[in-house]
């Protein structure tokens, strides 16, 4: 297939995944803001910006850091490349550029989402509520489902899936690192998982928010059948082999997808993916804590970016 087409497909799915992740982060952020924890409202309001690395850009707008302003900024701001509205726009533009290479059902669905988003915006009350974020998530599920159900298991599919998992791994690692660092700064956590009562309450909400934002709350209960603690949350989201948003799961998929791409230029991305997969398959949460969870996650994020670049060089760039 054409390199340009592969590139459009890869970015199409990355943008859809990014829009979904943004919706997840903002939705959970909002529900947390409803809890009576007024003392660090400014802190929690900024969290979506910290996770997605857009804090400086937000400050540059001169807006006050309220939950509402942040949500509006990350959902509807056209100047913000990663805002949901821009992600959907970019996904649709990428789809339009290759509408001959995706199924007509996929194109119609993506186009429809884009049209509906335009209508929601035109209505004049740019929504930032749970209903809206649920809709975005459902759109993403729908597009993924239609893709799964209609496209041949061929290169276009592989590039679409690679985009999804590289973006998703990035997102899970970011959420975990920000939430964990927030917890690490509060004195109770790290020392003991059974610290004093009030801190435990805060942790509970914060950690369950992490889990909910990656659809893993039920998985946690099923797996541990115990109260929520930071180390287990990290273990689940990094090393769990069957949880669809864990780093391990993402890299199992990525390695498998890379194996199906044409051989010629594949050496570098395959090697990178295999090394990361090995680390996640044979690693342990205790080792991650020995290195320091933040360092571990930062290392992972860097390598995930490297893999994206290697993929770009090997397949997607016009030489």
């Amino acid at each position, binding site marked *: *297939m*054409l*390199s*340009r*087409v*592969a590139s459009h497909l890869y970015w199409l799915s990355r943008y859809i995944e990014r829009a979904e992740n943004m919706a997840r982060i903002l939705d959970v952020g909002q529900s947390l803001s409803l809890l009576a924890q007024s003392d660090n409202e400014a802190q929690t309001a900024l969290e979506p910006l910290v996770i997605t690395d857009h804090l400086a850009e937000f400050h540059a707008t001169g807006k006050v850091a309220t939950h509402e302003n942040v949500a509006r900024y990350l959902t509807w701001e056209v100047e913000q490349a990663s805002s949901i509205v821009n992600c959907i726009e970019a996904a649709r*533009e990428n789809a*339009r*550029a*290759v*509408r*001959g*290479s995706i199924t*007509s059902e996929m*194109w*119609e669905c993506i*186009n*429809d989402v884009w*049209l509906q988003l335009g209508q929601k915006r035109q209505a004049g009350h740019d929504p930032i509520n749970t209903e809206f974020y649920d809709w975005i998530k459902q759109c993403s599920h729908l597009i993924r489902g239609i893709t799964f159900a209609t496209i041949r298991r061929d*290169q276009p599919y592989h*590039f679409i899936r690679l985009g999804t998992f590289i973006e998703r791994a990035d997102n899970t690692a970011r959420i975990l690192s920000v939430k964990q660092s927030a917890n690490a700064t509060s004195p109770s956590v790290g020392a003991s998982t059974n610290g004093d009562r009030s801190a435990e309450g805060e942790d509970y909400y914060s950690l369950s928010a992490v889990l909910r934002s990656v659809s893993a709350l039920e998985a946690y209960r099923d797996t541990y059948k115990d109260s929520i603690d930071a180390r287990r949350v990290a273990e689940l989201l990094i090393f769990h082999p069957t949880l669809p948003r864990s780093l391990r799961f993402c890299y199992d998929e990525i390695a498998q997808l890379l194996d199906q*791409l*044409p051989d*010629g*230029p594949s050496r570098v991305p395959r090697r990178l993916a295999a090394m990361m997969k090995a680390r996640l398959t044979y690693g342990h949460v205790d080792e991650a804590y020995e290195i320091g969870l933040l360092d571990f996650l930062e290392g992972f994020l860097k390598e995930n970016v490297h893999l994206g670049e290697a993929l770009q060089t090997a*397949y*997607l760039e*016009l*030489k």
Partner: protein
Amino acid sequence: LKPNGPLEGVFDEMLQADGRPREHYAAYQDWLAGTTADAMHAKRAEADLIFRRLGITFSVYGEEGGTERLIPSDVVPRIISGQEWTTLEKGLAQRVLAINRFLHDIYHDQNILKAGLIPPDQIFGNDQFQVAMVGIDLPFKTYAHIVGVDIVRHSDGDFYVLEDNLRVPSGVSYMLSNRKMMMRLFPDLFRRHAVRPVEHYPSLLLQTLQGATEVNNPNVVLLTPGRFNSAYFEHTFLAQQMGIELVEGQDLFVQGGFVFMRTTSGPQKVDVIYRRLDDSFIDPLAFRADSMLGVPGLLSAYRLGRVVIANAIGTGVADDKSIYPYVPEMVRFYLGEEPILKNVPTWICRNADDLKHVLAHLPELVVKEVHGAGGYGMLVGPTSTKAEIEDFRQVLLSNPSNYIAQPTLALSSCPTFVEEGVAPRHIDLRPFVLVGKDIRMVPGGLTRVALRKGSLVVNSSQGGGTKDTWVVD
């Protein structure tokens, strides 16, 4: 619903002068009588919604926000009788064959010039004549593989060819989308009529492109200027329907005289390029150096015969207004036949006799610049003031060879669903002709309609719409 009566002095496709329907419209009129304006409104709203959902749009430049617009698709079909189509089909095949012979001749022996039928400076002074094509042998001597011929019906009831589009004719995707939409909206109508199918056009097009090269199992691609081009929907649509790659200039490169596309498995050779890009943009080394859309070195590979380009480079010389009047001569000269389709009578002002006639009849005529387009630098006699006509007379006299003149045509009308109900609006017809080892076309073509009352302008950029076109038996 009942269609409003025919316009004075205009041929109506549906109604005879006495208001009764023509035979091939009788069944439709019956059906129309049994439907209501509300039902038609609902159908049209449904059609608009579906067109928008499917993204069947054309791009408009320089418009904030709404850069993608729908081409209005009318819900009343344009119906052509099978008998009339048979004549049109024969006439089109004949005309397009003669034009291809002409193009081969003009880039080789130039017999038609030697025979004195066309003044040589009409050819050599033409911007569209590509010197680079002289002496180049093309497979099967085919130059114009895909031709869109603009046809109108005059008040005398006869068809006239208005223009031969030999470069990158577009609109066929609307023909196919209109049919799909009509079948979806009005299945009962299709049960009442034996409408000849058009859905196999992409398959015919693919066969034509595959057959345009001597290479076995050729790699055919569609070259688009990209998604900002107004016809981008059509490019993606056709590529998908044919199952071929849709490429942009940046996807192709020339190496060792061959053309390749960049793929995830490395370079892959390209044999046939169905290009939707004008000559001047196709190769920055040979034509416009500022073109970012083309492929450097493509012309040299083409001249070596390593790749087929459809349509060929240099076909534009035959669809120029200054060459148009000679097409009937081409039919006689190359085929030894009388032309089946009429040209609009054209006076060539460089001829003293023609000029005399034109000068004597300026208020009745349309006078056009030979290389002009888009209504620029022309005189429409009937709608001009005396002073304008006298001014134009001086301009014309100062350089007669720059002008041709034609009678003002009354385009036929067809009932169309508009504000006032079902009322007559002016239409034209663009059938698409495919040239391979034989000449093929699907029945009908794209009917364009001027939706504004009294307007003769059918262009989509100026309030024009389209209609599904039925050939019925």
